[in-house]
């Protein structure tokens, strides 16, 4: 039972990391790539880490609980740090004057 929960959570994490990667590779400009990197990154890491936390309830013991709490703390820190990092990167891009991609401009460029 626990194994199935772990596998499902881990699978969800892996799948969203996959889509994050595809997004990072496919999106047209820096800002929209940042959308993929910023959001998918938090969710996929936290989902995988939660899966690993659940795995620790196989043999409940004090040490196991402490490890689970530490992994939860890691996900908490990722949860705090990742949006901040996203914001720092995107404001660096904005301040340096990266122009957002838009469809009109691309069509004009092609003509």
């Amino acid at each position, binding site marked *: 039972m626990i194994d199935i929960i772990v596998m499902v959570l881990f699978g969800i994490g892996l799948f969203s990391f996959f889509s994050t990667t595809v997004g990072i590779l496919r999106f047209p400009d820096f800002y929209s790539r940042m959308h993929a990197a910023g959001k998918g990154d938090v969710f996929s890491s936290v989902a995988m880490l939660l899966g690993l936390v659940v795995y620790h309830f196989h043999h409940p013991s004090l040490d196991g609980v402490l490890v689970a709490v530490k992994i939860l703390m890691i996900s908490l820190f990722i949860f705090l740090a990742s949006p901040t990092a996203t914001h720092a990167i*995107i404001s660096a891009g904005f301040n340096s004057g990266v122009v957002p991609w838009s469809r009109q401009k691309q069509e004009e460029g092609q003509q």
Partner: protein
Amino acid sequence: MHKLYSFLVLFSFWMLLSGKFDAFHLTLGVFSSLLVAFLSADLLFHDRGKSDSRRWRELRRFIAYLPWLGKEIVLSTVHVTYLALHPRMRELIEPQVMRFKTRITSEIGQVVFANSITLTPGTITIQEEGGEFIVHALNRKFADGLPGEMEERLLRVFGDEEQANG
């Protein structure tokens, strides 16, 4: 006072990290937490003028706010996944930069608001300066959705009492 609070917070963090509850390690923990509390208490509790009851209330309401944020994070991941895997993705997105002013006055509230915007579907905070937000949105729909519901919820958490009621 804030040094005592940060000592308590840091010492509980130490207990979780350490997992060894013998006298020797606990003494080391007290010592380290005191040192860090002395060094960086002003960082952890930046806003020193805040009353204790207010701080407590904000914490309680903030925890109540988290499930909603979690739901939004899941939604935003689903949305990004959908866009990234969509074969004609370039026709679906219409990136734009917009700016607006928020009604949230407290600094920490603005910070939480900015990070929440970053985590919710389709929007990322680019800049935040004294209540002025510059936001990048993937779509017109998301751009129009701001500040919207999230600001209401955060006003309830961080706003002044009268502002939240009125």
